[in-house]
């Protein structure tokens, strides 16, 4: 008997009650997966498979119809300060400055902190995402990327055991997204933060995740495969497409999304044997791969 994982999801199911005279809709069912401490897990799947609902259940904002989520062997039944959430639409309060937005979270988490302690904590995490110059600005004075950075700083500032991110970069342009992905990668590698992130960007998943959960389409969506990222850490956006594992793994994920479940990645032939034969691109201007 191995020690139980940090997060244990058992038989999770979400069914929405039937509209008048119709059958109830089961969005997903029989979800079982685990997240280890310090692991970065991405969930990818098409729209409508209930990805956001799963994240909301982990965050305690939504209730499952069936099944359980355990964190450190305790069942999760509601929202809590042990989990930090980065929302898809940043969810900053527009009447507060960056400092006040982060401080709102810090004060909720560390109720006994003095003003100075709160301020120090706020400044530390705002600095971590590189927004110190904008700390006293209101959200409407910031760009989309900066707002999402504030959302990340707010989630990290409560020092959660697990970070939950719901397509945090979905609304950003490709260049900004790349920059923030790099920052997030650096922060997570430095802090060994446990992260559960939803995305539909395959490259984002390959760059960030240690483990990628692949979901089939809804209704009755399931986690069809749990693929471990064959690319070794530390990964970088600039270098990872030179890794021999990159194209086979990326193709595998794309095949899954386009054609549906196939042979799990680990059971396929070793990537070294089927590695692409095209020559390595000459060193030159960096290409943004599928931004």
């Amino acid at each position, binding site marked *: 008997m191995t020690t139980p994982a940090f997060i244990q999801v058992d038989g999770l199911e979400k069914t929405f009650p039937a509209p008048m005279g119709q059958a109830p809709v089961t969005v997903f069912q029989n979800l079982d997966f685990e997240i280890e401490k310090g692991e970065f897990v991405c969930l990818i799947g098409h729209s409508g498979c209930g990805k956001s609902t799963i994240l909301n259940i982990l965050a305690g904002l939504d209730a499952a119809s069936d099944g359980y989520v355990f964190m450190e062997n305790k069942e999760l039944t509601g*929202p809590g300060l042990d989990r930090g959430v980065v*929302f898809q639409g940043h*969810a900053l309060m527009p009447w507060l400055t960056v400092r006040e937005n982060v401080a*709102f979270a810090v004060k909720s988490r560390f109720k006994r902190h003095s003003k100075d302690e709160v301020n120090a904590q706020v400044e530390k995490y705002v600095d971590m995402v590189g927004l110190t110059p904008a700390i006293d600005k209101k959200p409407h004075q910031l760009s989309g990327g900066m707002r999402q950075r504030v959302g990340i700083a707010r989630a990290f500032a409560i020092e959660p055991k697990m970070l939950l991110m719901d397509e945090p970069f979905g609304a950003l342009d490709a260049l900004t997204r790349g920059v923030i992905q790099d920052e997030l990668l650096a922060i997570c590698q430095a802090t060994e933060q446990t992260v559960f992130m939803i995305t539909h960007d395959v490259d984002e998943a390959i760059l960030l995740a240690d483990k990628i959960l692949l979901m089939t389409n809804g209704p009755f969506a399931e986690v069809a495969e749990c693929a471990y990222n064959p690319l070794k850490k530390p990964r970088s956006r600039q270098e990872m497409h030179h890794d021999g594992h990159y194209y086979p793994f990326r193709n595998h994920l794309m095949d899954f999304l386009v054609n549906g479940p196939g042979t799990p990645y680990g059971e396929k032939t070793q990537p070294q044997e089927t590695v692409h034969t095209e020559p390595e691109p000459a060193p030159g201007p960096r290409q943004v791969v599928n931004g």
Partner: protein
Amino acid sequence: MSQSLSLRAGIVSILLLLAFIGAWWGATLPTQVDLGDMDPEYAAMMGLDSVQESDIPTPGDIGSAIWTHLSDPFYVKGSNDMGIGIQLAHSLWRVLAGFALAALVAVPLGFLIGMSPLMHKALDPYIQILKPISPLAWMPLALYIIQDASISSIFVIFICSIWPMMVNTAYGVASVRDDWLAVAKTLEVGPIKKAFKVILPAAAPTILTGMRISMGIAWLVIVAAEMLVGGTGIGYFIWNEWNNLDLANVIFAILLIGVVGMILDMIFGLLGKVVSYKEV
């Protein structure tokens, strides 16, 4: 460009004012009356003159009325002769008292209605019936039950300012973005802190719009209420001057009501700006 626009608009405003006063002045000039072959002595006895003063006050009359009232606004020479400042203070006190009481009831009740769909449905029929009632219709009932004219006017102000504030508060509270509530939930924010730190600031612009509408209505209603109950106040002043057939004072009071109403509206406009935020 915007500066020159305000400048040009200002010039047009002043020209319009001058044109209006000019037309007014022209229309109230003394008129020559043709007395025909009437005996001048008889005409004088009848109060007729070949030069007839206008019945309507001239711009000059209004000017001197304004000067008279504003040069000594706070005198009290008996219950029927008080300075305009005293009258205005009575009206403002009633409006502010009624408005403040209404806010004390309307904002918490609006919170309740906005947060609870059950209470929204349960209270909606009463609000829909009570809202369209002219506030003055309450006056007889108020006078009978309260038995005090001044407090009855305060009650009438209370009942007319309560609805826009309540409806707007409920709307503002109900439309607080789910995102912000989710943030509060994940941070385990308690209900009191959530109400004051998340819902109140989020709904504040809508609540203040309701307050601004309420204040506008209250200021409309106080004039009518004071005409009805008498005693003191700007509404009573107008009615009193009408009974004195002093139209210059009536016109002065009308102008004053407009100016005070504008100032009240500007105050709430400024307060609204303070709590407003740009959504992103």
